[in-house]
């Protein structure tokens, strides 16, 4: 008998806590033309495109005032909180920078060879023919952390104000019109008390607010709630943990794997796989991605990645190498019907992962995010020229573009791709290999947090980290560049006294070891003493803001701007 995290919802009410009118006196408010929340591919493509258009619209540029475009980014710099595989389709870079030769793009490797393998404990069986959704020829391996820096530099050159180390806490809404955002406070102590150098946030008002927050976007969740923009299906997420390795022998192909070490039995709902991509001659990146609807409370994606590295196939690639980076992040996998029913409301537009614009069967999202950012910019300029803040035209733009078309097309890939890229590929290929015998059964479609968790043995096979080839969570958090101050207030909302199954789920799930159960309570609960509930201790300064907790019964809110990881090459 299991327990579902959804039975212990976090103490949070999105619509009332994170949405409200401006509170600063008018003369203290900061007025900008367009406020973009999120310095990722979507937000920065939007910023760049806006400046390109404004060059030819001097009247509008003047109307937008001293600060025509501001990007609000909670990381130390754009790119610091970006992480992805990734294979990027070139279409959006071409659309945004048509005159920039591909040789100047911030890309690492042009894909001319790729392969998919089904792993057993000792072997790697190439899947042929390769399922078509895996084919990446003509795409580029990129580090989205580097892409973010590139796009940010271009934006700054063009006159965009990049406000890094700034979190957007609250959506400013008056009369159901979005007026801007309120930035987060700085200098609060552990219990929220203002410290000596306390600096309150500011109301930033704008004619257009673009929410480009990425996966599990904070204000997007609040907006979807407040304006009732829920899509037909609940959104779902997968968690990816990634490492970058310097290796002596170059890798010659993009690799995806499925199968081992995930367990096949349907009751565990373990779906996912790995990616191993070349990053030029001397580096590779390797990551493991799994859907967050698994049911074993001891399942840990970080440890599955460590276990995965032990496979001889992987050892051959990493042998003699050195880990140089680590990170973790979630990705939305709900597909077409999980996207919000509208992408805009008066005064606001949503672009990218936070709006579910991810084509999960083909594992693509970066170029859709950028396209969406471009369309948002074009819609904004067109509307503001007419003195309107009604951005409805954006919806149609998105749905009739490759974003809408691709996602709609893949919505039909119900069986097997509705469960995602790796799942779909695994199932499709496994079905081929086993001639339909595997897997059988019916697939669950619930919200990740509604799956009941049980304590089982997923963790039994996880290796003890040796610090050179396999790593523990704490040293990995260190490798992410996370140096958040210890007396920062807790930005994670969860119920802190829950059944052991839920506590264990969080402890194992979190790649950054944020959650802990006091040893004595753990023992007691395992021995069946007491009511089976335990306390959950939170170390918020470890958090790398991957978002997994939000998918599994908690709620991540943005911590102080500047906190969190400093990704440079993931």
């Amino acid at each position, binding site marked *: 008998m299991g327990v579902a995290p959804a039975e212990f919802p976090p103490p949070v009410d999105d619509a009332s806590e994170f949405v409200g009118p401006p509170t600063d006196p008018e003369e203290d408010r900061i007025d900008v033309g367009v406020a973009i929340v999120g310095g990722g591919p979507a937000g920065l493509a939007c910023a760049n495109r806006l400046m390109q258009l404004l060059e030819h619209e001097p009247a509008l540029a003047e109307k937008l005032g001293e600060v025509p475009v501001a990007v609000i980014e909670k990381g130390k710099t754009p790119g610091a909180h970006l992480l992805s595989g990734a294979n990027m389709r070139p279409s959006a870079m071409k659309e945004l920078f048509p005159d920039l030769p591909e040789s100047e793009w911030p890309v690492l490797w042009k894909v001319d060879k790729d392969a998919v393998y089904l792993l057993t404990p000792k072997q790697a069986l190439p899947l042929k023919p390769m399922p078509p959704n895996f084919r990446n020829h003509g795409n580029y391996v990129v580090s989205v952390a580097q892409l973010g820096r590139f796009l940010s530099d271009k934006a700054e050159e063009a006159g965009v104000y990049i406000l890094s180390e700034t979190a957007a806490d609250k959506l400013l809404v008056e009369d159901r019109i979005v007026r801007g955002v309120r930035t987060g406070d700085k200098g609060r102590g552990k219990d929220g008390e203002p410290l000596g150098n306390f600096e309150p946030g500011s109301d930033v008002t704008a004619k257009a607010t673009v929410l480009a927050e990425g996966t599990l976007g904070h204000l997007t969740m609040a907006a979807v709630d407040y304006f009732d923009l829920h899509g037909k299906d609940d959104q779902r997420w997968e968690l990816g943990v990634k490492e970058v390795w310097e290796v002596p022998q170059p890798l010659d192909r993009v690799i995806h794997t499925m199968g081992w070490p995930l367990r096949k039995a349907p009751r565990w709902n373990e779906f996912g796989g790995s990616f191993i991509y070349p990053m030029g001659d001397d580096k590779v990146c390797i990551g493991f991605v799994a859907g967050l609807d698994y049911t074993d409370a001891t399942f840990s994606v970080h440890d599955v990645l460590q276990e995965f590295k032990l496979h001889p196939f992987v050892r051959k690639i990493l042998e003699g190498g050195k880990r140089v980076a680590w990170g973790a992040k979630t990705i939305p996998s709900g597909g077409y019907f999980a996207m919000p029913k509208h992408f805009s409301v008066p005064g606001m537009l949503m672009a990218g992962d936070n709006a579910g614009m991810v084509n999960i069967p083909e594992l693509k999202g970066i170029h859709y995010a950028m396209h969406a950012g471009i369309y948002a910019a074009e819609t904004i300029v067109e509307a503001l020229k007419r003195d309107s803040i009604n951005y409805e035209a954006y919806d149609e733009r998105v749905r009739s573009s490759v974003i809408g078309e691709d996602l709609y097309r893949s919505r039909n890939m119900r069986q097997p791709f509705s469960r995602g890229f790796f799942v779909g590929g695994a199932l499709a290929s496994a079905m081929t290999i086993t001639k339909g015998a595997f897997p059988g059964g019916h697939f669950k479609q619930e919200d990740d947090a509604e799956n009941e968790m049980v304590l089982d043995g997923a963790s039994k096979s996880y290796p003890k980290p040796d610090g050179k080839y396999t790593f523990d969570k*704490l040293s990995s*958090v260190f490798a992410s560049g996370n140096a958040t101050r*210890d007396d920062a207030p807790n930005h994670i909302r969860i119920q802190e006294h829950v059944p052991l199954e839920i506590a264990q789920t969080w402890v194992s799930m979190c790649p950054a070891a944020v959650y802990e159960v006091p040893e004595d309570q753990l023992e007691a609960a395992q021995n069946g003493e007491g009511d089976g509930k335990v306390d959950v201790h939170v170390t918020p300064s470890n958090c790398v803001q991957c978002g997994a907790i939000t998918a599994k019964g908690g709620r991540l809110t943005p911590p102080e701007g500047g906190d969190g990881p400093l990704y440079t090459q993931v």
Partner: protein
Amino acid sequence: MAGILVYALHDDEGNFNKNSQGAISEAAKLAGELGAEAAALVVGDVSDEGAQSLGAFGASKVYRAKNVPEGLAQPIVDAMAKVIQDEAFDYVLFGGGLLGFEIGAGLTARLGAGVTMEVTDVKVQDGGLVAVRPILQDSQIAEVQYVGKPGIIIGRLNAFDAVARDGGSAEVVDVDVELSPWSTKATMVTRGEQRGADVNIEDADYLVAGGRGLGKAENFELCEELAKALGGAVAATRAVVDAGWFPYAGQIGQTGKTVAPKLYLAAGISGAIQHKVGMQSSENIVAINKDPNAPIFEFCDLGIVGDLHKIMPKLTEAVKAKKGA
């Protein structure tokens, strides 16, 4: 080849500090290899015997600038610059410490000289000296050569051992120094005030640090007692500071302080990297932990797998006994 000039710092009673003695013996050794002389410079009211005694560490001459006040760097820059230029010294060596840094830096500007600081070792190479120093938080070691003369070497505190070199008595030469106008613009009001209350763990030679393995806040007493016996201070990990068992001022690690004491005794500390980076340069690391797999056992010099509640009280007694003996 005039040789190496060393600054020797003394206290109000005329006792020369260990770092200076170390620097002189190091200079004597190097000078010997170069076929040159090592000399010392002292300022203030130093007695003849006091100055001559530096000969024991290998100084052949001691330049004494009686009219130069002790305690602040710039007047000493004036004194040393004069002697270095008059006597054409090739190298200047300091035993570390605040004044050493400030005087060495002033000389760099005054004489247009190369300077290396935090030096842990000096080599003789191709007829000259090469300074060896750790860089980038001790993650690499650099070997640095000087272009032109003189070359200024500022040692890391305690880098050079004071070794008696059979030097006999040094010749004392009094020098008259004209102070630069700006050297008299700073005046010492109080020197060396002790502030017992806030013990600066960064300056302690011995640190006893407590982690989660202590079990509860009260057990920090075990650390206090042992620290007292050793003549050191108490520090803590982030986890216990978080839990309120110890003040933040004592936190060692990535988000706390970085220390490099002579002895770092870690009690009940696992040794996660966030903590390690704050103490990995300690000269001697001793760890007590009941978990044989704790990462700290990978990088300590002496590791004891056992119950700190049993070991620490007995260790404290044994240390007291040994020192009392």
